[in-house]
C-alpha cells in the first residue's frame, strides 16, 4: 500500500483525515464514517439554564463557563467573557455528562473481524495447555487504551443520548486486561483516554476445550494467578531486603500487572449476578485482598445488606433479564426465574438504600435508548431520579477514582455536560447539546419535512429477508410515536441492534441499523411499505439490495397496561418464594413419639426400638428410648405407625453444581474443587429431601485419573453455599480409573489431540507421576518451613497442595473404579505412597477382591443393581453390597443420580433381596456406613444421643416400596413435610395462574400482552458488504 498520509493529518483538528485519505486511496467506496470537523475557539457560556451541578444540587438561571476543555466557573451571576460563544439555556437543564461504567466503546468489536480472514484456525494450531503455569487466557498487560480505534460508529449514538464518558474493557480470556475510561467525543484515539487502568478485569463466562474448561477450573485458575501474584510480591520483598544469594525476580507480564493492581489498589471487575456468585466473588476478593467492583449484580437485591457491610461497589447491568422471545410457549419458567425477572430492576434502589456505591453498564444492550428504557424500569422499581443521575455521574466517577475530574459541574472539572429539556433518560427528552472535553456536539435536527404517518407500526414483527444465500428470518420490535418517529430494535442471528433514524411518513417505514466493520461503520437501510399487518420492501447495504417482507406478530403493549398494578404483588411473590425455598419450619427442639426407631447404631445388633421416643434439643438428639418422658412444654410429633431412620446419606452425588462437574481438560485436576461451584438453588436439593436424604457427598466427575475436590453438604434448602457446607467434614478428592479417564468412548473433536492416558497403564502412571511430584513438593516445602527465617518457600501450587494433603492423610480419596484388577492396582499404589483410599466408588467388581479391599481399609460405595451399560460393568452383580459386607468391607449404596437418590431406602432393600443382608445392615448402607466413609459419623449416620437431629420419618417400613417420606429433619429443623409440600405446590401453581391468566383461557386469543407468537429462528440480517474485505485489508496497512 502506498503511504497516503497527508501532512495535515498531524493536526489535531482534522480527526477525520485518516479515514478520508483512506477513502481516497481506495477509490471512494463509501462515505467516511466521521466528517471533517472544524475547530472553533474552545470558549463557551451556557446562560440562563437550570444547572444540576450534582445530583440533588440545582442552580436556577445559572451560567456555566467552559474554557479549554474545563469548566471555568458555574454560578448565578457570572460575567460572560467576550470570547465565549453564548448558548441560551432558557428552559433547559444542564447535567453532568453521563458515564457508562462498562462497555467496549472505542474498540473494534471482536465480532466484526473480516469474514474472509480464512477458515478458523484449526484446533491443531492452538497450544495445548499443560496447566496454570501456561497462563491460558491471561493478558493482564493488555490495556483497552491500546486497543482503541479512531472511529467507532457506536460512540455517536451514546453521545447523542448524553453519555460523555465510558469505561471500555478488553475482551477475551479470563484476565482480558486493563479497563480504560474514555471520552465519547470525536477525537483521535489517544486523546480519548481519561484514565487507565481504572480496573483489572476478570471474566468467568466462556468455555474452552483446554484448561481451564469449566467454571470451577476458571475459579481455581483465577486464584492460582492471584496466589502467584502474591508470591511474586513476597519474592520481590525478600529480594529487595537482601538480594545476596537470591535470584533476581524476572519480569512476568502475566503476573506483574496483577501484582501491581493488588498493591496499589486498582480495583478488579468481578462478574457476579446471582447471590451465590456474589458470595463467591467477595470471598475471592477478601482472600486475595482485591478491591472489588462487582459487575452485573442483577440479583444483588438479595445481597444488598451484606454488600452494604462490604467494601464492594457494584456496576449494575441494566440489561434486565426477561423472557426469551423464542421460548417454547409451553415452557414452564421456574418461579425463582420469574421472581428474579420481577425483582432485578429493584436492585439499584436496594443497593443504594444499603449504602452500596453503584454505577451502571449498558451490558449487551444495543444502545442508549434501550438502556434508558431499562433505567426507567429501575426508577419504576424505586430508584429515585437523583440516585439514577448519581449512579450515572458522580457515583460512577467515585467508583472509578475520577471524581476529581468528572461527575459533577464544578470549576476545574472536565467540561462533560448535557444540555437537555429534561433528564436524559426521560421519554420525550430533547438533547440540545452535549459537551465532551469542552467541545460542543449538537445532534443535527432532521430538516426533512415529512408527511405525517398514516399507519402505526408499533409491535412485534417477523421479517423474511431474501438473500442470495437463501431466506433468512429476523424479528423487529418497533415503537412509533405520534409524530411518526420510530424506535426499537431488530434481532438477527448476530444479536440485537437498535434501529436508527426510524420514521414513518404516510405508509412508508424507513430506518437504519449500524454495524462496525473494523474502522468502518456499515449501515443497513430498511425501506418498507406498510399495509395493515404486513410490510413489503427492501434492505440495502451499500450497492446491494434484498427483498424484505414481514408481518406483525403482536401488537405493542398499550400504555394503559403498563400502568396497571401487577396481578401479583412483590409481597405475594416473596411469600411464595419463602415456601418454595427454605425450611418448612425451624423447630430445633421437639420430641417424636410412638415411632419405630431404626437407630442403626450398633453394627452387630438389631438396634430397632418400637414405640420409642426421641427427644431433640437445639438440633441435637438429647434422649432416646422406650421409657422416655417428654419434658413439659416440648413440641410433640406423634409418629404412630411410622418409622424413623437416620437421615439418608448419599456418598456419591453431582447435584447442586454450577457448570460442569468435570474439569476434563487435564489428567490431573486436583487444583479445582466442587466447593467453589456449589449451586444452592438447585431444585434437586428439595427433591432429595423429599426422598429423605439429609447429607450428600458432591463429587467431581470421573473424567480424570485425579479429579477435583469434593463438597460434603447438609441439604439445608434455602441456605447459601456456605450454609449448605457440612462444617467439619474432612476434605476429599475424586480419583477415577478405567474407561472414563482413558476416554474409551468417543474421539476428541478434530484438531484436538487425544489426551494421555488412553490405557489403564497410563491411568496408573498419571497417578504415580503426580504423587512422585507431590512428595518432592512437600519435602521442599517442609525444608523451607524448617529453614532459617527468610527462607523462600516453594511457590504455592494448588494442584500439589491437595496431593500433599492426601500424602499427609488430610484429604480423603474417593476413587471411581470398576474392575477388580484396577482396584488392586490402586490399593497397591496407595500403599506404596503411604496413604489410604477412603472409598472405592462404584467398585462394581469389588466383590471379587473384597478381602483385599477390607485389608487395605477402604470403604466401598456401590450401586444397588446397575449393570451392563459398559464393558467394565458387565460383571456387576446386585449381590455386590451384601457380599462385600459379608467379607468385612464397610459398604454404602450411593445414587450418582438426582433421581436414584430419591429412593435410596429402596436401593438398600435390594441388598436384602440379593445377598441376604438383614434389615439393619441394609439400612446402614445408606446411613451409618456412608457417614463413616465420609468421616462424619461422630455427627450423623445413626440415631444416638449427642448426634445431629438429622432424621427421616416414613409412614411405613423404611425398606418397603410403599412407604413415603413424611418428614425430613436436619439439625432439628423441618426441611421437608409431605403436607407442607402440597401447600408449597398450591402456592406455586396459584401464583403462576395469577401471573399468566391467559393459560386458562382460549389460547388463540391474540390481543393480550402475553400472547405474542413465538418467533422463527433469526439468522444473519446484515450480510457483509462486498467491499468489506478490501476495507479491512486497507485498515491493516
Amino acid at each position, binding site marked *: 500500500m502506498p503511504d497516503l498520509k497527508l501532512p495535515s493529518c498531524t493536526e489535531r483538528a482534522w480527526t477525520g483525515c485518516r479515514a478520508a485519505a483512506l477513502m481516497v486511496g481506495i477509490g471512494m467506496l463509501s462515505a467516511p464514517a466521521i466528517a471533517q470537523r472544524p475547530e472553533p475557539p474552545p470558549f463557551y457560556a451556557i446562560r440562563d439554564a437550570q444547572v444540576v451541578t450534582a445530583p440533588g444540587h440545582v442552580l436556577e438561571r445559572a451560567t456555566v463557563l467552559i474554557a479549554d476543555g474545563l469548566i471555568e466557573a458555574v454560578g448565578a451571576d457570572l460575567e460572560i467573557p467576550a470570547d465565549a460563544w453564548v448558548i441560551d439555556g432558557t428552559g433547559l437543564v444542564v447535567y453532568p455528562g453521563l458515564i457508562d461504567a462498562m462497555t467496549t466503546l472505542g474498540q473494534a468489536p471482536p465480532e466484526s473481524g473480516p469474514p474472509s480472514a480464512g477458515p478458523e484456525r484449526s484446533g491443531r494450531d492452538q497450544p495445548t495447555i499443560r496447566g496454570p503455569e501456561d497462563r491460558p487466557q491471561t493478558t493482564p498487560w493488555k490495556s483497552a487504551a491500546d486497543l482503541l480505534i479512531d472511529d467507532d460508529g457506536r460512540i455517536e449514538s451514546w453521545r447523542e443520548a448524553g453519555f460523555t464518558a465510558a469505561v471500555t474493557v478488553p475482551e477475551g480470556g479470563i484476565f482480558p486486561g486493563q479497563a480504560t475510561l474514555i471520552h465519547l467525543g470525536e477525537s483521535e484515539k489517544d486523546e480519548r483516554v481519561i484514565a487507565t487502568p481504572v480496573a483489572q478485569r476478570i471474566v468467568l463466562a466462556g468455555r474452552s476445550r483446554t484448561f481451564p474448561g469449566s467454571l470451577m477450573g476458571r475459579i481455581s485458575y483465577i486464584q492460582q494467578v492471584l496466589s502467584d501474584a502474591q508470591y511474586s510480591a513476597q519474592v520481590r520483598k525478600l529480594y529487595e531486603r537482601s538480594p545476596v544469594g537470591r535470584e533476581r525476580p524476572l519480569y512476568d507480564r502475566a503476573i506483574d500487572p496483577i501484582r501491581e493492581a493488588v498493591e496499589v489498589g486498582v480495583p478488579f471487575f468481578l462478574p457476579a449476578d446471582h447471590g451465590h456468585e456474589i458470595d463467591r466473588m467477595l470471598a475471592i476478593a477478601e482472600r486475595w485482598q482485591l478491591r472489588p467492583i462487582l459487575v452485573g449484580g442483577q440479583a444483588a437485591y438479595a445481597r444488598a445488606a451484606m454488600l452494604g457491610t462490604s467494601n464492594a461497589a457494584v456496576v449494575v447491568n441494566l440489561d434486565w433479564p426477561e423472557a426469551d422471545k*423464542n*421460548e*417454547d*410457549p*409451553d*415452557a*414452564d419458567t*421456574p418461579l425463582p426465574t420469574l421472581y428474579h425477572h420481577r425483582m432485578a430492576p429493584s436492585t439499584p434502589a436496594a443497593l443504594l438504600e444499603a449504602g452500596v456505591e453503584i454505577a451502571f453498564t449498558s451490558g449487551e444492550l444495543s444502545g442508549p435508548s434501550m438502556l434508558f428504557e431499562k433505567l426507567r424500569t429501575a426508577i419504576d422499581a424505586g430508584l429515585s431520579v437523583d440516585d439514577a443521575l448519581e449512579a450515572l455521574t458522580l457515583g460512577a466517577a467515585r467508583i472509578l477514582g475520577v471524581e476529581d475530574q468528572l461527575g459533577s459541574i464544578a470549576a476545574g472539572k472536565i467540561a462533560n455536560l448535557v444540555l437537555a429539556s429534561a433528564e436524559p433518560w426521560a421519554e420525550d427528552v430533547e438533547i440540545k447539546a452535549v459537551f465532551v472535553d469542552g467541545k460542543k456536539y449538537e445532534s443535527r435536527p432532521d430538516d426533512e419535512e415529512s408527511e405525517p404517518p398514516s399507519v402505526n407500526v408499533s409491535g412485534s414483527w417477523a421479517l423474511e429477508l431474501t438473500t442470495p444465500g437463501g431466506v433468512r428470518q429476523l424479528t423487529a420490535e418497533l415503537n412509533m410515536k405520534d409524530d411518526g418517529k420510530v424506535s426499537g430494535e431488530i434481532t438477527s442471528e448476530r444479536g440485537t441492534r437498535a434501529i436508527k433514524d426510524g420514521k414513518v411518513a404516510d405508509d412508508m417505514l424507513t430506518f437504519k441499523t449500524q454495524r462496525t466493520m473494523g474502522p468502518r461503520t456499515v449501515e443497513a437501510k430498511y425501506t418498507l411499505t406498510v399495509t395493515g399487518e404486513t410490510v413489503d420492501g427492501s434492505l440495502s447495504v451499500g450497492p446491494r439490495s434484498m427483498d424484505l417482507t414481514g408481518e406483525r406478530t403482536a401488537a405493542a403493549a398499550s400504555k394503559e397496561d403498563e400502568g396497571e398494578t401487577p396481578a401479583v404483588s412483590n409481597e405475594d411473590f416473596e411469600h411464595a418464594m419463602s415456601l418454595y425455598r427454605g425450611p418448612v419450619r425451624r423447630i430445633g427442639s421437639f420430641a417424636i413419639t410412638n415411632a419405630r426407631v431404626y437407630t442403626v447404631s450398633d453394627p452387630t445388633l438389631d438396634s430397632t426400638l418400637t414405640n420409642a421416643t426421641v427427644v431433640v434439643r437445639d438440633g441435637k438428639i438429647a434422649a432416646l428410648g422406650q421409657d422416655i418422658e417428654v419434658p413439659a412444654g416440648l413440641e410433640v410429633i406423634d409418629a404412630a405407625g411410622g418409622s424413623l431412620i437416620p437421615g439418608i446419606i448419599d456418598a456419591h452425588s453431582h447435584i447442586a453444581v454450577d457448570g460442569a462437574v468435570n474439569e476434563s481438560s487435564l489428567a490431573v485436576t486436583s487444583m479445582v474443587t466442587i466447593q467453589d461451584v456449589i449451586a444452592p438453588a438447585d*431444585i434437586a436439593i428439595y*427433591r432429595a429431601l*423429599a426422598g429423605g436424604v439429609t447429607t450428600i457427598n458432591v463429587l467431581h466427575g470421573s473424567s480424570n485419573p485425579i479429579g477435583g475436590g469434593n463438597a460434603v453438604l447438609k441439604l439445608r434448602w434455602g441456605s447459601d453455599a456456605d450454609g449448605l457446607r457440612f462444617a467439619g467434614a474432612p476434605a476429599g478428592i475424586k480419583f477415577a480409573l478405567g*474407561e472414563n479417564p482413558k476416554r474409551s*468412548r468417543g474421539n476428541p*473433536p478434530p484438531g484436538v489431540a487425544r489426551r494421555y492416558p488412553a490405557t489403564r497403564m497410563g491411568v496408573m502412571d498419571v497417578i504415580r507421576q503426580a504423587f512422585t511430584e507431590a512428595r518432592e513438593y512437600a519435602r521442599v516445602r517442609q525444608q523451607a518451613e524448617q529453614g532459617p527465617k527468610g527462607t523462600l518457600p516453594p511457590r504455592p501450587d494448588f494442584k500439589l497442595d491437595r496431593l500433599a494433603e492426601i500424602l499427609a492423610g488430610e484429604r480423603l480419596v474417593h476413587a471411581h473404579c470398576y474392575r477388580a484388577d484396577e482396584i488392586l492396582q490402586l490399593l497397591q499404589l496407595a500403599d506404596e505412597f503411604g496413604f489410604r483410599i477412603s472409598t472405592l466408588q462404584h467398585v462394581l467388581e469389588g*466383590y*471379587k*477382591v*473384597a*478381602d*483385599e479391599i*477390607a*485389608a487395605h481399609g477402604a470403604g466401598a460405595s456401590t450401586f444397588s*443393581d*446397575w*449393570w*451392563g*451399560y*459398559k*464393558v467394565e*460393568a458387565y*460383571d456387576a*452383580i*446386585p*449381590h455386590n453390597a451384601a*457380599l462385600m459386607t*459379608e467379607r468385612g468391607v464397610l459398604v454404602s449404596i450411593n445414587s450418582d443420580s*438426582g*433421581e*436414584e437418590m*430419591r*429412593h435410596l431406602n*429402596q436401593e438398600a*432393600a*435390594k441388598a*436384602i*433381596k*440379593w*445377598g441376604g443382608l438383614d434389615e439393619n445392615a441394609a439400612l446402614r448402607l445408606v446411613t451409618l456406613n456412608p457417614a463413616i466413609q465420609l468421616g462424619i459419623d461422630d455427627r450423623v449416620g445413626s440415631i444416638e444421643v449427642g448426634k445431629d437431629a438429622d432424621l427421616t420419618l416414613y409412614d411405613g417400613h423404611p*425398606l418397603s*416400596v*410403599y412407604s*413415603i417420606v413424611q418428614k425430613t429433619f436436619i439439625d432439628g429443623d423441618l426441611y421437608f413435610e409431605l403436607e407442607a*409440600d402440597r401447600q408449597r*405446590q398450591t402456592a*406455586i401453581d396459584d401464583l*403462576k395462574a395469577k401471573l399468566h391468566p391467559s393459560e386458562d383461557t382460549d389460547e388463540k386469543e391474540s390481543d393480550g400482552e402475553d400472547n405474542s407468537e*413465538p418467533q*422463527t*429462528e*433469526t439468522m444473519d440480517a446484515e450480510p457483509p458488504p462486498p467491499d468489506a474485505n478490501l476495507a479491512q485489508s486497507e485498515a491493516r496497512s
Partner: protein
Amino acid sequence: MSSTHYPDFPAQIRHRGRLAWRWHVALIASLTLATASISDGQTLVIEGGTVHSLAGEPFVGHVLVVDGLIQEVSDSLTIPADAIQVDATGLHVYPGLFDAMTTLGLVEISAVAATSDTTEIGRFNPHLQAASAVHPASEVIPVTRANGITHAISAPGTRDGIIAGQAAVLHLDGWTVDEMAIERSAAMVVRWPDIATRIFDRSTFSFRSRPFNEAKEEAEEGQGELRDWLEAARHYTQAAGSTRTERSLELEALARVLDRGQPVIFLANAARDIESAVDFAEREGLNMILAGGRDAWKVKELLAEKRIPVILGRSQALPAEDDDPYDRPFRNAGELHAAGVKLAFSTGAGSRFGPGGPHSTRTLPYETAMAAAYGLPREEALKAITLYPAEIFGLSDRLGTVEAGKIANLIVTNGDPLEITTQVRHLIIQGREVETANRHRSLYERYRTRPDAR
C-alpha cells in the same frame, strides 16, 4: 441413501410398475409365518399356594398345566400321576410379569455399539422386525426373568427417523427366537414427530434449546411424511391385485396398521405431542397405543375418551419441570387410572427415540410399586404389568391372568411381587419350570466361595 428411504414413493410405485411380480402371494405367506410354541405333552402342577389369578379373589389352591397351557385352576384338583409337582405351600402364585417395552435380546452391553441392534439407519423402516435381531442367548434375559418377568415386548428404536419397525412379544425363555416368540410382530413403533424445543446436542454433549417455530416446523414436516407413507400404503393395498406394481416390503408391512389393524405404538411425552398424535391416529384410522406418556396426566380425559391405552416409562423419573411436584412422575399412573385410562408399565418407554437399555428390566415391579405408593391401587398396579399389557396388545386370551386356557407363564413368590424383598421361588414359562440361575447368581456363587485372600 439406502433403499429404505422413500421420499417420493407413490411415484416410485408407478415407475417401477414394469418390474412388478405377484407380491400378494408372498404377503400372505409372510403373515402366516408361524411361531413355534412348546408342545411337549408335559404336565405340571403348582400345589397349595395362594393363587392370585387376577380374575377373582385370591384363594389357596392348585394350578394344573398341560402342554404349556393352564388347564385348571381350583382348590380341589386330582393331580395326574405323571405331573411334575411344584410345591407352593405358603407361597403365592401370580401371572408372570409382562414388561410392555424393552430392548431385551437387542442389546448386550449398552456402550458397545457392536452388541446393539436396536436402531437401524433410515427414517421409515416399517418392514424391520425386532424379532429378527433378538439374541436368545443374551445374558440379560435370564437375569431379567429371575425377578419374575416372564415375557416382554422387545422393540426397535430410531435415532432421527419416524417408523422404527415392528415390536415382538417374547417369552423370556427359548432356545430360538421362534420358541420365544408369542407374536413376532405385535405392533408398529413410531417415534411421533414431536415439537422438541430442547434437544440433545451431540457436539457439546448437552441439551440446548431452539426456537419454537423451528421445532414446530420440523414436527409438522415429519407428521406430513408419516401421512404420506400411510397414504402410499393405502394405494398399495388397493393395487393389491395389480401385476404392474412392484413389490414394496415397506408398504406391505405398513399396510397392516391400516383400518385399525395392527396396533401402532406412538412414542410421545409432552401433552401437545400426545394430543397431536391422538388426533393424527384418529384421522388416519390407526389403532394407537401411547408409549412414554410423561405428560399423559395432563390429557387423561382425552386418552380416556378416545380409549387410547398408555405404556408408561419409568415411574422413578425426575419431574420434567423444576416447579413440578417432586412426585409428579410417581403420580402419573394413579391419575390416569382414576380417569379411566388403560395402562401398562415398562422399563423402556420414555425416551422419544425408543426403548432404553434392557439391563434394568428386572426392576419393572419397583417402577410399578412407586406408582402404587402414590395413588395407583395395588391390584391395578399388578394388573398393569400382567393383564393390561396383554389386553393392550390383543393377547389377553393367551396371557395376563391365572385362568384355564391361558399360556402358563407363572411365578411363585414368597410375597407381594412388587416388594423388593420378595423372592421369586419358581418361574414357569410356557408350562415348564425355568431355572432362575443367571450370570449374576453364578458370579455371586463363584466369588462367594473364593478362599480368604487376607
